[in-house]
């Protein structure tokens, strides 16, 4: 007898119990007997042998303790199956596959109402999986983009806007595919469950050829999109690793001290223990820049001004996305007590949008020009005075000029 292994791509989803059982039975009559079913890579391995009428049946996972019991089904389930003429073959997609070539063996499931209950358990698992994908996306967002953008109101929108179309789209599409896959499974299981709940048995001889092409097209599309999503995540991670810190003087983006010092004829002095740049550049349309809690001194004729600033700078793929980013940042007024601070429009600046508000500690300026958005929070004061040393109309035009659009 030959021991050759033959591989086949399933023509139907594993959760379509009727089609899968029918397909496996048909292949057994051609001499192909299932050895393994891989859900992740989506193929089945068969052992070529004698053509033999064989019944295949799928049941919901029998492990009572869940995954903690290991990959094998509950020993009692195997013992009962063997006692009644059935053999365990493999597990795939939350289902166990059993077979028998004994025509006298009773059906694996003889009570449709009870079988419907076991499928309901699979439904709950699928819903859990959908929630898991969402949590994973949130954790990834948090991991890749840091907490600063994520936790503010509108943060996730801001992240997507900052990502632009290049990396955000595959991630969103990939997630949509994973969700759609779960949705299809829920729909398919619900259809079979309804049938069973009405006391009807599943059709073990269903024509699995119907819908075969549609299923393959869907699997191909979802595989490509899932791959694109994983590639995007990897690319973003590599981009994050490439983020670097460098001295303020070398920064390409405008920093507060240099233009202000020039404007005021002052001498800037940085506080190196505080001043670091963090610049993350994934590609041209994906550029984020952040300076948080930066400190510097400006020595002027009137005295030394202490500057404390915080910049969030985003360059997006399109002006529309930068508008979304600006809107999200405008709504991301943190510090609860000041979240109702009145937002005022600033006119006369070289920008498409310009807003300002007081967050209780300092003045915030939000600028958008073309694809660029900058949110700057500046606190400036003389040593003996906590009032703003530099009014907005001094530093806002300087900042607006630095945005190229």
């Amino acid at each position, binding site marked *: 007898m030959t021991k050759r292994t033959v591989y086949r791509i399933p023509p139907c989803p594993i959760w379509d119990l009727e089609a899968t059982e029918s397909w496996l039975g048909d292949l057994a009559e051609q001499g192909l007997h299932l050895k393994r079913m891989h859900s992740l890579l989506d193929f089945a391995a068969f052992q070529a042998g004698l053509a033999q009428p064989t019944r295949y*049946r799928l*049941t919901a996972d*029998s492990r*009572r303790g869940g995954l903690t019991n290991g990959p094998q089904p*509950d*020993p*009692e*389930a*195997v*013992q*009962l*199956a063997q*006692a*009644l003429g*059935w053999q365990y073959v493999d597990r795939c997609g939350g289902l166990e596959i*059993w077979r028998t070539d004994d025509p006298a063996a*009773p*059906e*694996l*499931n*003889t*009570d449709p*109402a*009870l*079988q419907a*209950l*076991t499928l*309901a358990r699979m439904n709950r698992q699928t819903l859990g999986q959908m929630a898991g994908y969402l949590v994973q996306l949130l954790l990834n967002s948090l991991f890749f983009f840091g907490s600063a953008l994520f936790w503010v109101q509108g943060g996730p929108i801001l992240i997507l806007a900052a990502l632009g179309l290049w990396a955000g789209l595959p991630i969103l599409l990939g997630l949509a595919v994973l969700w759609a896959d779960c949705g299809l499974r829920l729909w398919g299981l619900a259809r079979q469950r309804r049938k069973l709940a009405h006391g009807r048995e599943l059709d073990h001889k269903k024509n699995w050829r119907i819908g075969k092409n549609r299923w393959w097209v869907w699997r191909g599309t979802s595989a490509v999109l899932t791959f694109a999503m994983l590639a995007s995540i990897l690319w973003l991670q590599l981009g994050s690793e490439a983020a670097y810190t460098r001295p303020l003087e070398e920064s390409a983006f405008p920093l507060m001290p240099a233009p202000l010092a020039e404007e005021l004829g002052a001498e800037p002095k940085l506080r190196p223990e505080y001043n670091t740049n963090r610049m993350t550049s994934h590609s041209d349309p994906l550029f984020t820049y952040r300076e948080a809690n930066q400190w510097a001194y400006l020595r002027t004729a009137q005295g030394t001004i202490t500057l404390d600033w915080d910049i969030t700078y985003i360059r997006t793929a399109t002006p529309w996305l930068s508008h979304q980013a600006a809107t999200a940042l405008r709504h991301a007024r943190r510090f609860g007590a000041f979240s109702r601070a009145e937002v005022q429009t600033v006119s006369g600046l070289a920008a498409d949008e310009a807003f300002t508000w007081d967050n209780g500690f300092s003045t915030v300026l939000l600028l958008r020009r073309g694809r660029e958005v900058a949110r700057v929070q500046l606190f400036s004061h003389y040593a003996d005075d906590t009032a703003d040393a530099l009014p907005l109309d001094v530093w806002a035009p300087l900042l607006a000029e630095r945005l190229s659009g």
Partner: protein
Amino acid sequence: MPKQPLVLLTETMFYVLMAFTQGPMCGADAAAFIHQRTGGRVPIGPATLYTILGKFEKEQYITQVEMEGRKRTYAITAKGRAAYEAELARLRQCVADAEGGTTP
């Protein structure tokens, strides 16, 4: 949807519970008993039997009294016996209703 306790026994469940009223036994013995008692009229598959055993154990209708390798032996509990008696009474009433009589 929240899990609900058993309200009504299906025919198969009733027969499985009936098997355990005969004394402690394993699942395969219960299947053999049902086959013999019904003359094969009520088929019971291994997956169905396994699901019922799990459900009955959870509902405390039966309890595991012995484990020998992969084979588990169960015994009916007082709660299980009460459920069986209640279902039996309900079925008797059904038959009586059908025959136009009163409660037996």
